[in-house]
């Protein structure tokens, strides 16, 4: 069995991007107090309906996050929302709170996935949740693939694991730094990312300044076959807060890799190198395989402040395609006539072009673009609306 690829959808635009770039499932949050990404735009009920419609048309599953640590006032509001989620036929809800699991199980038949926020790390814990009616468990990021395999074999539960992206340094649900230093509940969407700060540490006169509690980003591409062998049902990409370039690029790379696995072929070193080149083009911290093979070591700590390394900037998104005539680009970052830019089609390799000429929408020729504006450039085949346009940084 090839695992499904589960991509983040911070808003409707990003959802369309990841679905176009090959996600098999998306996870998203509603505009309410039930999820963990307060600063992400999230979905109104209308948008959720739209999201389910878009996804189900393409056979893509929709999982809705309800994974904050609920207080009683939120629990009271939940049944109404569950009615709505049932009516639009979402495929599952992602939950971390035991009370919420109990409520959903007794109230409706939406499948329940246990959030990584619950830090389910071992097979007895998995058994506990299984007995509560949970169908899938998103294992804690500390669990190795070997351990996941044992849990899978012992419980026969569907397991989901993270495959790529930023990582919480703490055992999920076990960090309240933001709660007590910024007045924001990290387990209800208010994490201030205090683990990324630079700290001055002192012991007996010895002083060290370091981002000592910041984690490198997870990188599971080289281990896809091991995920498959471990019987993992779903591979999750982190990043509901990230932009469309990030979500689209990561989804495209992993979708291509999983497709090759699905065809029973090997992921050759050449292919992996190509994909790694692609992944370097988006904003990221240094990569680590964290605990996937062995317990995360010193190597997994990111000794830099938030500065992310990236090779490419997203300079725009394709806003319109008029076949054989032109492409309209919604400009996100300035680029010039004569620049070499790349398009990231939904399938296959990126396409490079040197911009021969550019026009405003009233056909005035221009030499450079302004962020926020639209420009027309000559038509390029196989480029679609919402394709990402990027340029070397």
């Amino acid at each position, binding site marked *: 069995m090839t695992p499904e690829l589960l991509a983040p959808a911070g808003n409707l635009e990003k959802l369309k991007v990841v679905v176009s770039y090959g996600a098999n499932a998306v996870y998203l949050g509603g505009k309410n107090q039930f999820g963990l990404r307060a600063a992400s735009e999230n979905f109104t009920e209308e948008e959720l309906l739209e999201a389910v419609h878009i996804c189900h048309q393409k056979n893509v599953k929709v999982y809705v996050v309800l994974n904050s640590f609920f207080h009683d006032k939120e629990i009271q509001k939940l049944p109404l929302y569950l009615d709505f989620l049932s009516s639009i036929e979402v495929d599952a809800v992602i939950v971390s709170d035991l009370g919420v699991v109990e409520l959903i199980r007794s109230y409706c038949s939406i499948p329940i996935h246990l959030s990584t926020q619950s830090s389910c*790390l071992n097979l007895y814990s998995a058994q506990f949740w299984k007995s509560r009616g949970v169908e899938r468990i998103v294992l804690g990021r500390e669990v190795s693939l070997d351990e996941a395999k044992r849990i899978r074999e012992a419980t026969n539960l569907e397991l989901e694991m993270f495959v790529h992206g930023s990582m919480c340094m703490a055992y999920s649900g076990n960090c309240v730094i933001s709660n007590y230093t910024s007045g924001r509940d990290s387990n209800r969407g208010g994490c201030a990312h205090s683990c990324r700060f630079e700290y001055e540490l002192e012991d007996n006169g010895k002083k060290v300044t370091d981002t000592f*509690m910041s984690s490198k980003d997870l990188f599971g591409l080289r281990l896809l076959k091991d995920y498959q062998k471990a019987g993992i049902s779903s591979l999750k990409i982190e990043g509901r807060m990230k932009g469309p370039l990030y979500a689209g690029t990561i989804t495209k790379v992993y979708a291509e890799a999983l497709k090759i696995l699905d065809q029973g072929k090997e992921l050759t070193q050449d292919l992996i190198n190509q994909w790694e080149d692609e992944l370097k083009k988006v904003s990221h911290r240094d990569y680590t395989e964290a605990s996937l093979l062995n317990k995360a070591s010193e190597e997994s700590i990111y000794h830099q402040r938030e500065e992310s390394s990236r090779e490419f900037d997203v300079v725009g998104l394709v806003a319109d395609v008029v076949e054989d005539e032109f492409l309209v680009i919604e400009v996100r970052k300035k680029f010039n006539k004569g620049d070499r830019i790349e398009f990231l089609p939904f399938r296959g390799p990126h396409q490079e072009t040197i911009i021969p000429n550019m026009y405003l929408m009233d056909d005035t020729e221009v030499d450079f673009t302004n962020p926020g504006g639209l420009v027309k450039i000559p038509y390029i085949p196989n480029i679609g609306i919402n394709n990402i346009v990027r340029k070397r940084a």
Partner: protein
Amino acid sequence: MKIVANYSPSIELKHLDEILFCPTQTSRHGVMPFEDMLPALNSIKAKKVLVWDILMVQKDFDTAKAFIEKIDIQLFDAIRVQDLGALEYLKVHFPHIPVQFNAETGYHNAKSLAALCESHDKLEKIIVSLELSKTKLSEIMQVLDKYSVRFEIMVIGPLLLFYTPRSLLSPHFNKNADGFITVTGKSEETPHKGFRIIENQHGTFMFHPKDHLLLDYLDEIEKIGIKDIRVDSNDLYKNAVDYINNRDPKDLEKIKTSRPHIKGYFNVNKSDALFSKLKNKHFLKKEDGFVGEVLSSQKESYLAIKILKDGLKIGAPIRIVTPEGKEKRVTIKKLWNSRGDKLQSSTKGSLAFIDFVKGVSKRSFVYNNQRP
């Protein structure tokens, strides 16, 4: 009220009802191996509880399980766990041993705590979260009154902020003879200074610079229905126990002046206030008649609208809401596409252009009605 405290060789047992034994093998903050506790375990008459509060991936679980299976579990009157796997394991393999569950991280509603109460008939106690205010605790306790489970709260002690299994300090500092590293930390990015950070065999732990202190609220805690109070501070436990028994304000003053402290969220918890603000910013799209989003706004020229839902029609009144929440109401006089072709209406998924509207910027939302 029953007083619960951690075992240490210098502990004075007078007035203590329950002693927590935290061996390094199973306890995240343990400083003494189980073997060194044996004499005390054999001699102390008060209730003895084995603390097994580490979180465990399977490999660590196997190690802890082997330890539990090897020791004489009868030395203890109960076992305290935080990992639900440990709870489940004890239920299956040691069904007669009373279990205490540490619910200090999460479990902020009555339903989840009730589910815990029902999870194991040998569950004798739940340690409640310090993030629950007294009002919430009181409401929750009323719901849980029907269970025979006791509840405990820490009334003095260090406030754990962060727990990771990774070794975060050893890249920079050497371990002491017992395998510990203890440092203090500060950051220019937070006004708080003096975080105590410890690394040991179970990972790295960060504590609040100030102690958590609820000794001022003992009567309220009792009234709420929490009968067990934990004195978690090794060096101040004696003063705390004295105060609990005598209620002599001088004892409390001594504690308060010896170290900075906070009362945390006991009076009120507003840590989701910002969260609500963040959410409200985005409620704009919820209304009927949503058309789409302004992709580009070119002064004196056009608004480019990405049609996400309903289409636009010539002559139709529309309402545009800017990201700052300002509203503009206009009637569509001209509508065209990317090629400049005039349109009577636009369709879902297309890019449509209308005349520029002053004050409307990119990311404004367009609605096909004049309400509200």
